[in-house]
């Protein structure tokens, strides 16, 4: 291709140079392709291992736990795993171990809990962030959630069933009687989605127990955030009463 003809070896170095540039461009393209493969498949594989390790550790830790029922002591949250998230709409086998904190260290392992937001079951707003693409893509399909869909959180001793806001009858995510939408797309700076009452004042007393999920939007971009709001449905369900979880776990 770019080899100089024997008789014209001194004529010009341009063909060789062009060949070199071509090879470098091709190599660059292959590296980018490999990166896509890495993002879409390899990080998922690595994350699967991390999640299963975390799940084992968390359950071992829970088995040994002798804390006061109904509470997750904040002191126990040191960037580690503390809850399991179930979203039956995204698959009956959908479960992700949730870690405390939203730095890349936590988010590369699973959904992360915004520090300073409520803990599961508490009045206020439980804020969780998760990757949309790669790292197990925990929040890839959040846009498929419909009003009334259960989002179940398992802690050391309880189950909490949150339900996506909106009008269940019409499926309209924006028509919740509370005025809080079940789904919204916001700018990355819109922190009020995490307020004790979502979209309310930052320091006001909460009007209920909410759960807010955030991820990037559109996919592969960081231009906006996709946000899902849900409200606690009923009280905490003790694990001693429902060892296998509430019926909402198999609702689709």
């Amino acid at each position, binding site marked *: 291709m770019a080899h100089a003809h024997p008789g014209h070896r001194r004529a010009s170095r341009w063909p060789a140079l062009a060949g070199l540039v071509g090879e470098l461009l091709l190599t660059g393209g292959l590296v980018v392709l490999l*990166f896509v493969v*890495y*993002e879409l498949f*390899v990080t998922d594989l690595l994350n699967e291992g991390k999640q299963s390790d975390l799940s084992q550790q968390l359950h071992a830790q829970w088995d040994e736990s002798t804390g006061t029922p109904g509470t997750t002591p904040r002191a126990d949250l040191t960037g580690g795993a503390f809850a399991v998230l179930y979203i039956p709409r995204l698959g009956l086998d959908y479960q992700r171990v949730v870690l405390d904190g939203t730095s*890349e260290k936590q988010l590369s392992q699973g959904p992360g809990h915004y520090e300073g937001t409520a803990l599961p079951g508490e009045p206020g707003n439980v804020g969780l962030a998760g990757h949309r*693409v790669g790292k197990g893509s925990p*929040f890839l399909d959040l846009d498929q959630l419909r009003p009334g869909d259960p989002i179940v959180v398992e802690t050391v001793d309880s189950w909490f069933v949150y339900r996506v806001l909106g009008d269940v009858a019409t499926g309209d995510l924006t028509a919740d009687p509370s005025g809080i939408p079940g789904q919204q797309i916001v700018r990355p700076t819109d922190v009020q989605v*995490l307020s004790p009452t979502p979209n309310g004042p930052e320091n006001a007393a909460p009007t209920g127990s909410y759960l807010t999920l955030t991820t990037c939007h559109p996919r592969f971009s960081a231009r906006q955030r996709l946000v899902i709001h849900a409200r606690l449905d009923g009280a905490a369900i003790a694990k001693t009463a429902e060892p296998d979880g509430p019926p909402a776990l198999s609702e689709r």
Partner: protein
Amino acid sequence: MYGWIWRHLPGGTASRALISMVLVLGVCALLLFVVFPWVEPQLPFNAVTVGG
């Protein structure tokens, strides 16, 4: 570039092919397990939080 590397590998075609394969795999492993994990946090689509 690849031609130059090929010509500088020792042995015949079989040995060169084998060494090339090892080199390609080595470069892939270096990219997947060292370079990409380092590059990745700086990319935009990893931003999933609000406010931060």
